[in-house]
C-alpha cells in the first residue's frame, strides 16, 4: 500500500518528534525543539492562508500576542484556568480576524496585507501602552499551566524542557493533522482553486470572499495557540511577541520551507529557529546568512525548499 502524502507527513513528524530526544546531548535541545514546534504551528497557519488561499498577512504576530496575553491576563483577572485561557485567546483572535477580514477580503488583490499590518501594529501598541493591564514593554508573568504537576502525580516525572518538548510536539502533530485534513476536504480544494484562479473559482460557484475569510480566521487561531504555548512555556511574555518582526519571521519561515506545504512549514520553522543557535559564534553575520539563504531559496528553489526537493525526487522516480 502506498502512503498518501498526508499520512507520510504525519508519520514522519511523529517519528521525528519521538526519536530526536535519543540524540540530544543535553537538556537544552528540548528547549530548542519546543521552540521549533511552537513556531511551526504558527507557520502551518500561514500555509493555510498564504499557500492555499493565496492571501498575505503581515500582522499574524498580533494574534500570537492575543493568545499569549490571554494566558497571562485571564487567569489573574478572571480566575480562568490557563488551559481555558488558550481557548479564550483563540476565540478572541478568531473574532478579530473575522471582523478585520470580512470587509477587506471582499476586495480582490492584496489588501489584507495592509489591513493586517495595521491590525498587528495596533495590537502591539495596545500591549505596550496599556500599562495598567499588560504591565507594558517590560513584560508580564504568565501563570503555570499545572500540567507537569498533574503528570508527576500520575507517576510521569518530566523535566520542564522535556514536558514542553512533548507537549508542543503533540500540539504540532494535531495542528498538522487538522491542516492536512482541511487540505484534502472540499474546502481545501476550493481554496486551492481560488488560489489558482479567482475568476475560474468564482465561475464554478465558489464563494470566494467567504473562503478567504475562513482561511484567515483559521490561520489566526493557529497563530494564537502558538502564542499561548510560547507564553505558558516561558512563563513570561513581553509585547515583542506581537511585534512586526515576529510577523515577518512567520512569513519568512513559510516561504523558506515552502509556503504550499505543511512539511515545508515545519522545515522552515526548524531551520530559522536553529540558525541563530548554530550561528552564535558568528552572531554578527546572522542577518547576512539569513538574507543570503532567503535570496538563494527564492532564486533556485522558488516553491520553497521542501516542495522543490520533493518535485526533484518524484521527477526522477517517474
Amino acid at each position, binding site marked *: 500500500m502506498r502512503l498518501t502524502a498526508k499520512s507520510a507527513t504525519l508519520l514522519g513528524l511523529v517519528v521525528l518528534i519521538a526519536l530526536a530526544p535519543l540524540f540530544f546531548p543535553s537538556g*537544552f535541545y528540548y528547549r530548542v525543539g519546543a521552540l521549533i514546534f511552537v513556531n511551526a504551528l504558527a507557520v502551518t497557519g500561514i500555509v493555510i492562508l498564504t499557500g492555499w488561499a493565496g492571501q498575505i498577512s503581515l500582522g499574524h504576530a498580533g494574534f500570537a500576542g492575543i493568545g499569549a496575553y490571554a494566558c497571562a491576563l485571564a487567569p489573574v483577572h478572571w480566575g480562568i484556568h490557563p488551559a481555558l485561557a488558550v481557548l479564550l485567546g483563540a476565540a478572541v483572535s478568531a473574532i478579530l480576524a473575522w471582523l478585520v477580514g470580512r470587509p477587506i477580503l471582499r476586495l480582490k488583490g492584496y489588501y489584507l496585507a495592509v489591513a493586517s499590518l495595521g491590525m498587528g501594529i495596533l495590537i502591539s501598541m495596545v500591549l505596550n501602552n496599556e500599562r495598567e493591564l499588560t504591565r507594558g*514593554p517590560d513584560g508580564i508573568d504568565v501563570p503555570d499551566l499545572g500540567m507537569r504537576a498533574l503528570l508527576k502525580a500520575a507517576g510521569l516525572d518530566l523535566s520542564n524542557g522535556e514536558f514542553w518538548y512533548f507537549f508542543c510536539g503533540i500540539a504540532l502533530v494535531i495542528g498538522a493533522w487538522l491542516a492536512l485534513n482541511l487540505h484534502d476536504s472540499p474546502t481545501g480544494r476550493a481554496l486551492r482553486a481560488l488560489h489558482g484562479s479567482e475568476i475560474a473559482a468564482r465561475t464554478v460557484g465558489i464563494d470566494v470572499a467567504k473562503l478567504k475569510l475562513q482561511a484567515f480566521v483559521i490561520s489566526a487561531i493557529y497563530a494564537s495557540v502558538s502564542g499561548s504555548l510560547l507564553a505558558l512555556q516561558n512563563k513570561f511574555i513581553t509585547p515583542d511577541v506581537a511585534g512586526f518582526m515576529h510577523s515577518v519571521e512567520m512569513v519568512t519561515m513559510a516561504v523558506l520551507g515552502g509556503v504550499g506545504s505543511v512539511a515545508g512549514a515545519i522545515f522552515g520553522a526548524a531551520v530559522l529557529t536553529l540558525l541563530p543557535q548554530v550561528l552564535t559564534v558568528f*552572531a554578527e553575520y546572522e542577518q547576512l546568512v539569513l538574507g543570503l539563504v532567503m535570496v538563494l531559496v527564492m532564486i533556485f528553489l522558488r516553491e520553497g525548499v521542501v516542495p522543490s526537493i520533493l518535485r526533484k525526487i518524484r521527477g526522477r522516480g517517474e
Partner: protein
Amino acid sequence: MKTFLTTTALVALAFPAMAEIKIGASLSSTGPAAFLGDPELKTLEMLVEDLNAKGGINGEEIVLVAYDDNGDPNKARTFATRLVEDDEVVAIIGGTTTGTTMSILAVAEDAEIPFISLAGAIDIIQPVKPFTFKTPHTDRMACQKIFEDMQKAGITKIGMISGTDGFGASMQAQCKEVAPDYAIEILADETYDPKDADMTAQLTKIKGTEGVQAILNPGFGQGPSIVTRNYKQLAIDLPFYQSHGVASDGFIELAGADAAEGVRLPGTALLVADLLAADDPQKPVVDAYKAMFEEKTGTPVGTFGGYAHDAFLIMTDAITRAGSAEPAAIRDAIEATSGLAGTTGIYTFTPEDHLGLDLSAFRMLEIKGGKWTLVQ
C-alpha cells in the same frame, strides 16, 4: 538514556572542571538595545582576558561563554537554558534589558545558578529572589535623586515627557509614585514613541501648562536627544532634567552641546572620573576601568559598560572569597559582599537587599560647555 543525559548535566554542575571556571553571559549586543549590550560585552571580554593574564581566580582560568540575544526575551530564555544545560556555567551575567532579565531570571532560579542582571527595573530584585542580583540603580532611585535636587531648588510643580519604551514607561510610573514624598506635583504628563522624530507638540503643551517650574524626561536612546533639541528650539526657559538612561557622552553629541547646556541628570562616578576627589573610594576602580576600556576599544566609557564591570567585579570577588566555583557557594559569597567599590557605587549586599546600592551611588551632574560637571 534521556535521564542519563540530564543527570550528567547536573553532576557536571556539582563537580566543575578543576582548571577553569565557566561564567555565562546573555547580552543584547545587537538589536535595539545594542548601545547598552555592546559596551557590556566588550567590558566582560576585556576583563576576563585581563584577569586570566593575571593568573585567574585562585589559580583557575575564567572562561566566558557569551551569547547575543538581540534584546529578545524569548531568545534570552533559550540562551539561558543553553548556558545552564549545555555549557554548564557556574554563574550568569546579563540581561541587558528588563525583559531579557526576567526571562533569564526564571531559568537561573530554577537551576539555582547565581545571576547578576544589568537591567534597571525594581521588579528584578523586589521581591528578593535567592539567586538574582543586579548592579544598576533602580529607576525609582533616579527619580528620588532628581526630586531631591528639585526640592533643593524649591521646585514643586513639574511637567514630565516620557518615552513609551520599557525604560521610559517604568521610570514614569516610579517617578509618579515617589513624587508626593518630595512634595512635587506633576502637572503635565506627556509621552512619545521612542522612534518619533519630533516632540515639539508634547513640549509645547507642557510649556503652555500654567505653573510648571521644571521638566523631567525619563527616556532612553535617541528620544531624549530629540526632546533636548526641541527644548532648545522652543526656547523653553525652565530647568530641564534627564534620566540616567542617557548618561553617556553619546547623548551630548547627539543633542548637541549647545542644546544640552544646563541639562541635569543623575549619573555615576564613571562619567566624571576626572572630577572625583583624590580620596573618593570609587576613584581607583573608576580610573582603572576608564583607562583600560578606552585604551582597548578607543571609545569613551559609559554607564552601561560600567554595570557589566561591576557585575564581573562582584562575581569574581565572590568566587575568590568563596574559594570554590560551586554555584551555591558563589551565591552565599555574593550575598556577603560588603563595601565593594564599583564604578556605579559601593555595593553592600544582604539577604534582604540584592541591589546593594543607596542614593549616594548617584551623583547629580550638569552639562556645561559640552562637558559633564558635578553639581555640589
